[in-house]
């Protein structure tokens, strides 16, 4: 009922607005219909209204509420909206676990980006050599992407289980033992110095195939003439890649950095399934700390604070990209 009444109000306003603008505008812009001038516009506004409303409430509304909650004293089940300013944030940055988490995030993002991009690029270049059964290889490298991070986490938890002297080696350590490379054995994620880097191995295994697919598409889009021209000019194949291929792939690299970057900043499921917080929180991440704080500690205000910090970190990465792509779109 409510909806219908609102519709009437909106369409009345729409008609009024249309009539008003109709008189001021030159005829050719208004198009043919006389009774519903610029009704397309009204219709389109109405058509996007549900999603705009939904996004406004369920995305921006809740972001706003989270930001608000992070400034309150809500540290128990019952909401307590006493305003405390930035106290939660100050406390957060004083917490040892959160400091470690931030460091881990930087480490993880750095290693993850570098390993994923280089491995993905390498695979793409190799596949681009017109090899036989390319489709098979492409599928093999892409398959890990079809798994959920939970599955990947469980599998790699087993593979990288260090084992011990008493119960014997397992997983990768066992493999190293068998092929006589026992020297390379490591505590993996149980070694605080290794910690989050073990998670990088699993994440790279899962995502580098995806990067490969992106690069492969990019490589196929580079016209053969460009490479040929370079070769005619006497460029070695390294020089072709260095000066022709890589620069032309820049937009793809940027896209991959954005996609991998936001995955790595908010990574949660992989860490939970694979290592948990790890010894001395060496594989802990802010998202996991947020879950712990909010749902185990019932400290909703502080959990909201962590969420906002995560949002800011991701925004720092995404917003420049959005601005950049919007600008290039308008240029076109």
């Amino acid at each position, binding site marked *: *009922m*409510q*909806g*219908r009444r*609102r*519709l009437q109000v*909106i369409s009345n306003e729409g008609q009024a607005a249309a009539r008003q603008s109709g008189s001021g505008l030159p005829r050719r812009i208004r198009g043919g*219909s006389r009774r*519903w001038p610029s*009704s*397309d516009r*009204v*219709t389109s506004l*109405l*058509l996007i*209204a*549900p999603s705009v*409303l*939904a996004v406004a409430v369920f995305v921006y509304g809740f972001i706003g509420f989270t930001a608000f909650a992070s400034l309150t004293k809500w*540290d*128990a*089940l*019952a*909401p307590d909206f006493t305003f405390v300013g930035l106290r939660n944030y100050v406390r957060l940055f004083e917490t*040892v*676990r959160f400091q470690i988490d931030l460091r881990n995030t930087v480490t993880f993002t750095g290693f993850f980006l570098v390993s994923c991009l280089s491995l993905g690029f390498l695979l793409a270049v190799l596949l681009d050599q017109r090899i036989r059964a390319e489709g098979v290889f492409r599928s093999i490298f892409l398959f890990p992407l079809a798994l959920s991070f939970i599955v990947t986490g469980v599998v790699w*938890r087993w593979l990288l*289980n*260090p*084992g*011990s*002297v*008493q*119960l014997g080696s397992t997983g990768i350590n066992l493999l190293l033992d068998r092929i006589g490379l026992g020297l390379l054995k490591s*505590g993996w*994620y*149980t070694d*605080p110095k290794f910690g989050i880097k073990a998670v990088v191995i699993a994440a790279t295994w899962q995502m580098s195939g995806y990067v490969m697919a992106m690069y492969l598409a990019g490589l196929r889009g580079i016209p053969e003439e460009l490479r040929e021209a370079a070769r005619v000019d006497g460029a070695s194949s390294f020089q072709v890649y260095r000066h022709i291929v890589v620069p032309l792939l820049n937009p793809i690299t940027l896209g991959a950095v954005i996609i991998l970057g936001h995955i790595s900043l908010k990574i949660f499921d992989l860490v939970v399934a694979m*290592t*948990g*917080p*790890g*010894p*001395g*929180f*060496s594989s802990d991440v802010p998202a996991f700390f947020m879950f*712990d*704080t*909010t*749902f*185990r*500690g*019932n*400290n909703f205000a502080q959990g909201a604070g962590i969420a906002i910090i995560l949002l800011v970190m991701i925004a720092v990465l995404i917003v420049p990209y959005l601005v950049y792509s919007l600008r290039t779109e308008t240029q076109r």
Partner: protein
Amino acid sequence: MVRHMRWLAVLSVLLIGAVIPIGSAGAAGTNKLEIFSWWTAGGEAEGLAGMFAAYKQRYPGVEIVNATVAGGAGTNAKAVLATRLTGGDPPDSFQVHAGLEIQTYDPEKFLEPLDSLYKSEGWDRALPKGVLTLLQYKGHYWAVPVNIHRANVLWYSKKVFSANNLTPPKTFAEFFKIADTLKAKGIVPFVLGDKEGWESGHAFEAVLIGTLGAQGYAGLWTGKTQWTDARVTQALNTYKRMISYTNTDHAALTWDGAGQYLINGKGAMQIMGDWQNGWFQSKNYSDYGWATPPGNAGVFDALSDSFALPKRAKDRDNALNWLRVAGSKAGQEAFNPKKGSICARTDCNQALFNAYLQSAAKDWQSNTLVPSVVHGAAAIESWAVKYKDIMALFVTSGDVAKTQASLQAACKDAGVCK
């Protein structure tokens, strides 16, 4: 075309109307009972089913809705429960650790006090005094305990101990002597699995009790003992030394995975709660013994599962009956042998229980009771979480001074220390 678009527009606006929720009135049912817990598997689920059967025997015709949420010692369940309580759609009764964990649910706002039920059912006589004190929060009872678990148990491999002519250590000095002997033989003296982050704090509870005694330990959570106390420093140093005798892969294992060392005869001792007993049995392992950790003799570090009654429960009468069953002799005798815990009541028929549980029940009657912090009894949840994190960090950092300072700061944050 334009007309079509217009209809689409009408549709989309109607959609907005549909999305805006119109408060729906829930139908009041009286033949239902919704019980919320995180007992989804193994002995726990069987125990719960046993208690359901006891309920149905007394109150036939009530349909029990078993609302369980699986996962991590109730972590996920607590998140769901929090939403339901604050959203005004509580289950009829829910599981909560007895003790200060109840503070999490803001009892005065969300729960009904159960003082009159305690009186009419005679629980204030059937339950030991220590538990009754533990259950009170702001002068009222808020939950009915169904069982008791013991946190401070030292499990040991009989095979390893007899092969080396050893007896379980009574003091930390003895502990380290045994540890050195075993280490030289390539056996892990002190088995630990701390993958989930709470196990280190759990073991440290026993070290604190062993160093400060029952009163000193309990005082840590009430402000009577200072965290800056020299004995806490001593406990941290002892614990640090104990950690040096653990298995190298402790961070990859959960407590049960670590128990495999004992089963294989490759590890000697492990400090874990008495759910370990049930796990050993499920693995058909019987060559284990139990003792109190060093310095813990005569002290029972307890945790208890209990059920509470939310305000605005839809089937309040059924829920009250449920609590009556949960607190009754019949209900607890149906639940505990399967769950692998002892009755909170002192009058259960001991013949129903296995050897370990019988010995625990005996200790329960005679020992001094102290509350476990990792399992929700001793401190409010936010403090317990901080304690857990600090002790998890200590395993790798080994920084005694910094850890003690953090423990003191956590106590201050909780408003107990000044």
